[in-house]
């Protein structure tokens, strides 16, 4: 078989698999991210909070390692360490601890930043622990959420898949088009009967296949390690995945349509990817941003993609729920592709 589309796609594959750096960033990096963040926020491995205590006489219940709230069903371990005030202040500044206690006679003074949620939480835990068991009338208790679909890792994996699709397309399509233009190879290719549409399609085909490969690896890893599962329709996931590839390939072609300079290319790529990486709720929920910003954030292609994949993964969504996002993403792809193709500088 020697059709140009096959040869062009084959060439893209060869470049991908022969460049160890590309292979690493595209396949292993997302897995490492999922692993590290999954462990850090999913309570795999128990977290112990450290609190410094200053003062001349320290009561026994505020020294050593103590467990608080056994009766609530969600015990927390806190390690108390005697320290000087100077040490404690320094540790706060360095972020080693979130709070320290000052013992002055009978009273305990909490020192912490009131807007730091971790410190607030520690304060409440210790406060409650010091007051002893609550009156037994109050029958509140905590039931930890360990069910699949409610943990941080379940939130994270769909985000990482969306991020992977974006990066794979912007770098894999955009960057390599710019490089081809820089090497004057584009100019050389266009001086043959090669069809421009086939040339650009080969990049999309490559991205669908490689993106699929990268996503499968990540899914396999998180399934085996964290037990994550797709609760919704797999076919709906495939539809969202394809729409995402199409949207970001189009955006990549638009980014790559004019420039032949690495500096400009770098700037453009970062201009497009960085804001979305931060705003689109890949790692943390974007609802922490001010309300007025939400409509903008929710309209970003990466947010659309991440939210829809998340819906399929953890909310058991089917086609109807994701149809709107798929339509918007596909339109984005179509429009950017059309504009990019029109503006494209082949020479």
């Amino acid at each position, binding site marked *: 078989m*020697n*059709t140009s589309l096959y*040869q062009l796609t084959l*060439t893209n594959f060869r470049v991908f698999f*022969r460049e160890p750096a590309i292979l690493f960033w595209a396949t292993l990096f997302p897995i490492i991210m999922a692993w590290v963040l999954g462990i850090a926020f999913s309570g795999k491995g128990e977290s112990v909070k450290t609190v410094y205590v200053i003062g001349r006489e320290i009561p026994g219940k505020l020294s050593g390692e103590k467990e608080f709230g056994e009766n609530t069903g969600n015990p927390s371990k806190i390690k108390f360490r005697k320290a000087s005030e100077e040490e404690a202040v320094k540790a706060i500044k360095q972020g080693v601890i979130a709070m320290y206690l000052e013992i002055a006679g009978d009273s305990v003074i909490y020192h912490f930043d009131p807007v730091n949620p971790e410190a607030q939480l520690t304060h409440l835990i210790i406060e409650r622990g010091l007051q002893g068991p609550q009156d037994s009338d109050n029958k509140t208790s905590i039931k930890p959420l360990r069910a699949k679909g409610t943990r941080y890792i379940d939130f994270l994996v769909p985000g990482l898949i969306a991020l992977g699709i974006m990066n794979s397309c912007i770098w894999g399509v955009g960057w390599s088009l710019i490089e081809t233009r820089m090497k004057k190879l584009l100019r*050389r290719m266009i*001086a043959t*009967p090669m069809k421009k549409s086939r040339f650009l399609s080969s990049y999309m085909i490559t991205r669908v296949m490689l993106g699929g490969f990268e996503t499968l690896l990540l899914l396999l890893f998180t399934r085996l390690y964290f037990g994550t599962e797709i609760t919704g329709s797999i076919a709906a996931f495939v539809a969202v995945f394809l729409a995402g590839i199409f949207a970001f390939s189009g955006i990549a072609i638009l980014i790559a349509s004019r420039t032949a300079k690495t500096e400009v290319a770098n700037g453009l790529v970062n201009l497009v990817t960085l804001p979305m990486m931060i705003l689109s709720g890949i790692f943390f929920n974007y609802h922490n941003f001010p309300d007025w910003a939400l409509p903008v954030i929710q309209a970003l292609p990466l947010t659309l993609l991440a939210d829809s994949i998340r819906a399929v993964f953890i909310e058991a969504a089917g086609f109807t729920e994701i149809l709107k996002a798929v339509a918007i993403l596909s339109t984005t792809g179509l429009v950017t592709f059309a504009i990019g193709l029109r503006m494209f500088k082949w020479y």
Partner: protein
Amino acid sequence: MNKMPVIEIKDVSKSFKEIEAVKNLTLTIYEGEYVALLGPNGAGKTTLIEMIEGLQKPDAGTIRILGMNWKEHEQKLHQKIGLSLQETKFIDKITTKETLDLFGSFYGLRPARTEEILELVNLTEKRKAYTNQLSGGQRQRLAIGIALLNNPRVLLLDEPTTGLDPGARREVWKILEKLRTDFKTTMILTTHYMEEAEVLCERILIMDKGEFIAAGTLPELNARYGEGDLIEITFDQNFDIGASDLPGVKRLNWVNAHTKAEVFVDNIAEVLPSIIESTRHSNIRITALTSRKMTLDDLFISMTGRHLTDA
């Protein structure tokens, strides 16, 4: 001559901002001709050849190739033309063979064509080497190999040997000479090596500042603009060589008054014996003597006051 015109350039001009790169050029190239565009950097050679290649559009004038033009016959022309650009780089981690397969697929060629080309440009041994492992000469031969994939009737090469050492340059020449005898290809190449133009091309166009300042075969150029052969001679004492009234001397140029002279002659073999005879006659010893053919570089200097290889 009853040859068929292959490339017809008529009143073609092209400017970039303030600079007129190509000024109202007209040129016809016939089937089987090897034509050199010779000139220093910035003479307009690349602009002209890229307009023929369809990579740039002329501001004015027409270009017809095999009776076709770029506007109406783009696909057909791509099939008939082979070209190499100035300093094309290939995809780093793709082998020589894979690169040829890729370009071959654009022409719808069988993979077997790759093998023929590898043989033709003498890269069979390097078929499995990544393109970034090739030497400058090998990379240039690959570029020519790509240009030859489709058996082009017209070959357009932009500085095919710039930056190559003499050995690598000769290897490229060998390939191009074989092409002329075996396939009767029509070729235009740009170069600033006068030797390349002399060795490969029957017709030479000297370009400077967007214009042809001289054109013709090498003997024609020499007869019209050159001063034949050149003898450089040094004597041990003052000697007025001009007083001897030697036959065949066209011009005499004293480098050092009465001791070192440049003698421009029609033919070294005819003039040199009589010069030696006249010195012997006057008891003058010749301390140094060199003689050579006028080169295109000498010609270019005499016309523009600059060297071809000057930037």
